[in-house]
Every structure is written in structure tokens, then in C-alpha cells.
């Protein structure tokens, strides 16, 4: 095991006067980790994501990116290396812009947006048709459709593709399949797993689906009351059962 890509050191997030949502949390994220994140409502899962992404300031502690503290970097700066897919299908796409336009926007993550033609060429459209086809939900036939007219599943698939269009050093999946029907949800989960594995992405995935948490990823963490109460990887994770997980869910 080498240097972690991201490292959270004694991270505390406080709201109001002194309600600690994250209590001195420590987490090392290594290259290629696909970590499923479990925990009850209010355990601090979303807060953890917001702290990493920079949407929520941390009170004390450090967030290290290749040993460089990024705790004071803005959320927009952090998008240079962190990408995120939200639970709400409305959050991740621009509704009045087409699927192709959204993908094109995502392609410039981390690059300067200049006063030159956006370059939506035929080759680009063909490329987009290829990558959207991998999601298996007819997204490839709707490249010129405004995303507001897509189904929730198609929008989430698009959000996922946008997040990974430029390979992020860390992909945050915030219950990205939770708002979808079981079949669509499973389809997106399979596509997610395939992309993460094939492209060797480093990802954190919040889920309330215990079966998904056990099946996917190489590592699993459980949050409770703002702290990590279980952190298992590899074989230890494979041995884990749903019953054992539920024991950690007592608030």
C-alpha cells in the first residue's frame, strides 16, 4: 500500500453552536479504491461528501490531496480533480441544454473555458453515441434532446458519464441510484461498476442498499454518529453479511 490519494485527518464538521456532525474523522483513500459508504440517516455520510467536495467548511483537521492540504480550497477549484453524482436527477444536468451539450460542458472540467467555438463536431457526436450506448438505456438515441425531457434514469446515467468524462482522481457517488425504480437502478449500478473497474476509478459510493454495498467495491465503511465504526477491505469485506452490518446501525 503506497501513499493515499486523499487523506482526511481528524476532520471535524460543526453546525450551529457545537453540534458535531463529523467527529474527528480519519480516512485514507488509496488509488483504485471503490469504497461503499453505509450508515443511518444523520450518520454524516452526506456531510462527509460535502466536506471532501468543499461544499461545507470543516472546523478543524486536514483534508490532504497528495499530502497537500486542500481544506481551504473552494469547491470549484476542487472540481479539477473531484467529480460528483448527486441523488436527485435534476441536480446533475442542465435541463434546457441537450445531452450532447451537457457532455461537452463536462469535457471542460478542469480546463479553461475560452472564447472559442465549443466544437460540437460530427466526430464528437459519434464518440458520444458510443459512450452513451454503454449505459444501455437508449441515451444514445437522444443526444440532441434537452435533458429536461429525459427520464430520471437517463439523466442519472448522463450525470454519471459527465462526472467521469474527464477522469477524476476521486468520484463521489451520493446515492446516485436511489431515486430510480429497481430495474433502472440495477442497470445504472452495473454500468457504474463496469466503468469504475474498467477505468480504474477511485470512488466513494453512499448507498442504503446493503446488497449493493456488499456486492460492489473493494472496501466498505460504515459511519455512525460522525465516526467511521467499520472499515473493511478485500476478503474481510467479502466475508461480511447483512446481519453483521445491521449491528453497526444502532444509533
Amino acid at each position, binding site marked *: 500500500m503506497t501513499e493515499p490519494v486523499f487523506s482526511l485527518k481528524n476532520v471535524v464538521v460543526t453546525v450551529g453552536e457545537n453540534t458535531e456532525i463529523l467527529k474527528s474523522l480519519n480516512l485514507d483513500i488509496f488509488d483504485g479504491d471503490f469504497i461503499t459508504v453505509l450508515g443511518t440517516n444523520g450518520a454524516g455520510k452526506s456531510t462527509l461528501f460535502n466536506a471532501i467536495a468543499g461544499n461545507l467548511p470543516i472546523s478543524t483537521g486536514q483534508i490532504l490531496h497528495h499530502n497537500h492540504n486542500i481544506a481551504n480550497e473552494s469547491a470549484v477549484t476542487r472540481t479539477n480533480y473531484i467529480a460528483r453524482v448527486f441523488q436527485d436527477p435534476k441536480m446533475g444536468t442542465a435541463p434546457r441544454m441537450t445531452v450532447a*451539450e451537457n457532455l461537452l460542458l463536462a469535457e471542460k472540467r478542469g480546463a479553461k473555458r475560452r472564447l472559442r467555438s465549443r466544437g460540437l463536431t460530427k466526430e464528437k457526436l459519434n464518440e458520444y453515441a458510443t459512450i452513451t450506448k454503454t449505459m444501455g438505456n437508449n441515451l444514445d438515441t437522444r443526444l440532441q434532446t434537452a435533458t429536461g425531457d429525459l427520464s430520471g434514469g437517463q439523466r442519472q446515467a448522463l450525470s454519471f458519464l459527465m462526472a467521469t468524462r474527464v477522469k477524476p482522481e476521486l468520484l463521489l457517488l451520493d446515492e446516485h441510484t436511489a431515486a430510480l425504480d429497481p430495474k433502472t437502478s440495477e442497470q445504472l449500478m452495473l454500468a457504474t461498476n463496469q466503468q469504475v473497474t474498467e477505468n480504474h476509478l477511485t470512488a466513494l459510493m453512499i448507498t442504503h442498499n446493503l446488497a449493493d454495498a456488499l456486492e460492489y467495491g473493494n472496501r466498505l465503511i460504515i459511519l455512525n454518529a460522525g465516526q467511521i465504526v467499520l472499515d473493511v477491505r478485500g476478503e474481510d469485506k467479502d466475508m461480511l453479511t447483512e446481519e453483521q452490518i445491521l449491528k453497526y446501525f444502532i444509533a
Partner: protein
Amino acid sequence: MSIIVSSIGQGLLWAVLGVALFLTFRILNFPDMTVEGSFPLGAATAVAMIAHGVNPYLATISAFIVGAIAGLITGLLYTKGKIPILLAGILVMTASLSINLRIMGSANISLLNQKSLFSAAFLRHLPKYFDSVLVGSVIIAIITIALIFFLQTELGQAFIATGDNPNMAQSIGIKTDRMTIMGLMLSNGLIAFGGAVIAQNNGYADINMGIGIIVIALASIIIGEVVFGELTLNERLVAVIVGSILYRLVLLAVLQLGFSTNDLNLISAFVLALAMMLPQIRHALKLDTMLKKGVAPHD
């Protein structure tokens, strides 16, 4: 006939405001009240400069810059100062009233016997009012084509995304505050530019000429949308121009009915309210199905 030409000319000149307001009202998705200040600001700047002997082209471009500064201030109050956009706009609008008086030195300055954009020799040989049609067409064509190109650039797309879904825009690294400020600067720059052109067309600048501007600009946007329905972004810009001309023709019709020019603001507000309610009225009265039935063959 010549009053219709005059209306078309006015529609083309005022279309600049509709297209400019489109950038904030439709693309960024908020109402920017700054325009009621930046319009007379542009007029005052250009007219005062021309009255002091400055070249009218230079004076008109200066108006754009001054308007952009007004937009910058609104943008900073909104994004950095966290003042709600409506209030930020009203603050800058109110403040610019004083600035305008400083620039003009009095509540009204005339351009009598001064050179303006409309005093080129060939324009004066045109039949009456055709000068404003020609100048208006050229200006709005240049602005619209430039905006269409801009909106298709990487920067323009980031600007559109900012208005469409700021959350998503930020999550892919777009600096939404900067995009918002840029939009406000561009929009108010164009509004002030429009103010400068219209003041030169009228032959004077007046401290009160900003009153009701936002309603007129909105009317051209809304009328264009009501008339044409679903359109692409580029087509919508053109629809605003047509909307602006239609609005002038409606005003002309109303004035022909015997209303006085003192009633213009009342009429403007009424026309806008009516245009905005039209989709509801149409739906409530089932006008569409009624019309379709009317033209369908009897079965």
C-alpha cells in the same frame, strides 16, 4: 404609411434592449432592474459626450462601457455582497439617477445641431423614418449575430449552464459568480448602448427616460415567445426582435384608438400583462381546440 415605418424603426432600435435583457431574464433566469438605470446612463453618457464635441461613434461605445460598469456593480453586490438580485438592481438603478444628473449637469440635454449616429449624409437622403429602420437593422443584426456566436463558444456554453443549473455548473468547475457578473455586464452594456442610440434618434437625453424600460424590454421577449412558441436558442433571439416590432405596432394601434402618449406606460404594462397571461387564457378558453375545430372539415 410613414407612421408604420416609424414604428418598425422604433421596434428595431428598441430590440437591442429586448435582446440584452434576454441574457439575464431568460438565460441567467433572474429579473435585473439595473436596466432602468443603465438605459438613461448610456443615453446621458453619449449625449453629454457628443455635446462636448466627442465623435458620436466613440460616445456610443463609451455608453456601452459605462453600462457594463453598472452591471459589474450589480453583479458584485449580488454575488459577493449576497444582496438579492432584485434589490441589488434597484440599488444600482437608484444610484445611477444621481450619476446621470452629474453626467448631464441638468435633467435634459438636447443634441440640437450636433452630429449623431443619424447625421450621416446618406441617411438624410432617405425618406422619413427610414434612417432609424436602416440604423436599427444594422445594429441589431450585428449584436444578434455576435451573441449567437458568443453563445456557441465554450465560454458562452458555460454562461448558459450557469443560468440553467448553477449547482451542476459548479460541480463541473464553472465559476458561476464570474459568469453571472459577465452576463450582467454584457446585458447592461448593451442596454446602455441602446440608450445611447435611442437618445441620438430622439435628439435628446432625459433623466426620466429610464422609467418603464424593463417593461418594454420584457414585452418584446414575451410577445416573441407567445407568437412563436417553442424555438431554439438562436431563433428565440430573432423572435425577440420580431416581438419588439410587434410591440411597437400594437402601441401604434392603441394610440390610433385615441389614447395619448401620456398613457404609454399604462399601455405598456397592460400589453405585457396581457401577453404573459395569454397562454393561461388560451388554455382556459380552449381557444386552440376551438380554432382547430373551426378549420377542420365537418364529419
